């Protein structure tokens, strides 16, 4: 009886190697002997057929997963029936009946749960967007500071990074929030600047009310955008033709000043400042930032900035020293070296991990629930406690977060696709 070639038992990984191995076997003519097998052997060979085994294995796994979900679903359905909880999303239309501290979206306790959740989502988006902006700015600062030639600055930056990265974010949020709680009561509010009040209820600043002239401002903005496009295109064309573009920054700043002052002169808007005033136990009027929002924003952005700073530092370090030296040899200034040589290359290394930091910040904003800021998760929590619709509420929140994550990844991959052409042309193709 011929020895069955071991290569018949195909390794799963790396099909190309297997195929080439089989080809060698076929070439040596031993494969023809396999045709003379008796049927138990042929049956045995079926188990050795990788395609057959693959299909079998996948069927079994999918069946187990489906069975698991079916079991859980059946059990849940029966549990819900015994507890007489009606499933479904009908609860979204009912009046929520709880108050939410005022935010960007108008809301009152008579509004529906759907509206309450939308307000929560709006708050999540607001704090995440602002947090991303602040964290990027602070992260850039820290990344550059860690690379500074001045020992004190780089040491301070690395101390900051180590302290922030090695303590839990939740603890930091609670710490910032507790700091806001030792502020004085509204009656004894701090007044760092006239018209600005800082107290345990938050920060109150005068708000500007804009009356009339909006149309002219809008028109000026539109005109500015069109002109900006025009200037940029002209500048690029000129650079391609003559090697030097237009002084775009100066031109655009001048244009903006002229257009804005023209709009203000023609439109003649009345700008009135509304100052916050103490009425009863709290301030009214003006703009306010609640301590919860401030603590969340500060906590999230300082925490994420440490991680972004490390990413930016890594990206800058990844650029070969020769690039900087070559640019210096060409006589570029230090700012130009950074702007034209180092950053365009570093950005490709920096963007992917920074994206995941943006995602982390958005997800971490759910910790708002611990300090009482009405974000999506904390309103979901209130909703499920009031209605008992735990599954629907949590599924909804998960869905929204998944959609947000996908949106951020998509936006960033689009950006990455755009930033790839920025890579310098290779000398030797």
């Amino acid at each position, binding site marked *: 009886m011929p020895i069955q070639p071991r290569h018949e038992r195909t390794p*799963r990984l790396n099909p190309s*190697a297997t195929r080439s191995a089989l080809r060698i076997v076929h070439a040596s003519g031993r494969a023809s002997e396999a045709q003379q097998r008796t049927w138990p052997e042929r049956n045995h060979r079926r188990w050795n057929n990788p395609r057959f085994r693959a299909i079998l*294995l996948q069927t079994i796994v999918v069946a187990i997963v489906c069975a698991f979900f079916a079991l859980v679903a059946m059990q849940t359905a029966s549990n819900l029936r*015994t507890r007489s909880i009606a499933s479904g999303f009908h609860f979204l239309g009912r009046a929520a009946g709880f108050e939410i501290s005022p935010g960007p979206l108008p809301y009152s306790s008579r509004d529906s749960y759907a509206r309450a959740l939308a307000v929560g989502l709006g708050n999540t988006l607001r704090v995440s967007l602002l947090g991303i902006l602040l964290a990027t700015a602070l992260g850039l600062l820290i990344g550059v500071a860690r690379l500074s030639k001045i020992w004190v600055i780089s040491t301070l930056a690395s101390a900051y990074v180590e302290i922030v990265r090695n*303590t839990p974010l939740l603890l930091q949020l609670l*710490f910032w929030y507790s700091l806001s709680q*030792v502020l004085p009561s509204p009656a004894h509010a701090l007044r760092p600047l006239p018209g600005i009040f800082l107290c345990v209820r938050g920060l109150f600043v005068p708000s500007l009310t804009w009356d009339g002239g909006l149309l002219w401002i809008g028109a000026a903005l539109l005109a500015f955008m069109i002109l900006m496009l025009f200037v940029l295109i002209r500048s690029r064309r000129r650079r391609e033709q003559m090697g030097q573009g237009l002084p775009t920054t100066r031109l655009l700043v001048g244009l903006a000043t002229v257009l804005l002052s023209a709009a203000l002169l023609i439109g003649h808007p009345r700008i009135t400042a509304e100052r916050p005033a103490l009425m009863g136990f709290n301030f009214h009027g003006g703009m306010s930032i609640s301590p919860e929002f401030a603590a969340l924003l500060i906590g999230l952005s300082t925490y994420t900035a440490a991680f972004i700073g490390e990413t930016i530092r890594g990206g800058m370090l990844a650029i070969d020293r020769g690039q900087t030296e070559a640019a210096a040899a060409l006589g570029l200034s230090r700012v130009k070296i950074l702007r034209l040589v180092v950053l365009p290359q570093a950005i490709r290394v920096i963007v992917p991990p920074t994206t995941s930091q943006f995602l982390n910040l958005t997800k971490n904003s759910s910790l708002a629930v*611990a300090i009482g800021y009405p974000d999506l998760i904390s309103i979901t929590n209130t909703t499920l406690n009031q209605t008992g619709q735990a599954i629907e509420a949590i599924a909804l929140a*998960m869905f929204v977060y998944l959609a947000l994550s996908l949106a951020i990844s998509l936006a960033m991959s689009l950006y990455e696709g755009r930033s790839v052409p920025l890579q310098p042309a290779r000398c030797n193709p």
Partner: protein
Amino acid sequence: MTTAASSFVRTLRRAPMFRDRTNTIATVAFVAGLLYWSFRFLNWAVVNAIWALPQDAGSNLCRVAQREGACWAAIHERFRFILLGSYPFDQQWRPTVACLLFISLYAVSTLRSFWRPWLLALWIGVPGAAVLLLRGGFLGLSGVPSEFWGGLPLTFVLSTVGFSAAFPLGVALALGRLSRLPAIRVLCVAYIEVIRGVPIVTFLFMAAVMFPLFMPQSFTVDKLLRAQIAFVMVIAAYLAEVIRAGLQAVPKGQYEAAASMGLTFWPTTILITLPQALRITIPGLVNTFISIFKDTSLVAVIGLFDLLGTAKAVLVDPKWIGFAVEVYFFVACVYFVFSFAVSQYSQYLERMLTARTLH
């Protein structure tokens, strides 16, 4: 004398903080600022601080001096509660021993000569022993239900048991994600991406609120175990990504060599690629462990008393309301000591491993 002084000055001038004029100016300015701030900080934290209050006295003494000095009396009085939770007082040697067990497990794991397969067994055995010790109910140890566990041992249990239990699951998910079988790959990718795209708090709420709905009603699982399961599910997804990176970093020649030896998938994985992949991913695994260690603090949100939960509980006590800065500072120091040590170790490891591969 003069030579000693001048050599000291020379060493100082060569130090990075006095390398050139900019550095010197910055250092001097910084030292001046540091002196001022450390003077103010020490005034608050040491000189004017109140370290202990007389027995049965209220915290009024602290409240009067709150602006000027720290009230470490809060820590002094609730030290045991913050670190060990509401574990029965006369049995508190047990959580202490459990903590020591965990710390020695971490210490042993840092030694390269212990990087043997049995280290994995140790990571199952030691947390198991610690949990049994906390639980009691055998050998004359009184049984202590998990509602009474708290503080540092709970943080250790959640992170270490979570890591150990999630590890095989993470390996399986990583292999599944790299599998050629489409159904398995899709399932693994879906699991990993859904978990990584959603905040961990959501899964904790799920564990606290939804989990009982999924189970038969006769079947009750205590809250700690539910949180632990949620953590295992989450950690597995994060570990899977780390391990996948390691599997992909194993040189292709290793897979091909194994295939040409006639090894099938499982022998290839278990004998050739997985051991190499795990060795590559050790720094990544350590970093994941640090973030898990910090993230276990989220259980405070669903009302479990881990290290942060006990701190929050102290601050709800009317006697200590308003002393959040002191209590959080203390807890932050505890977290910092552990994760800073581990992160320094991980950086050392990364340097060492890259140095080794370069040769």
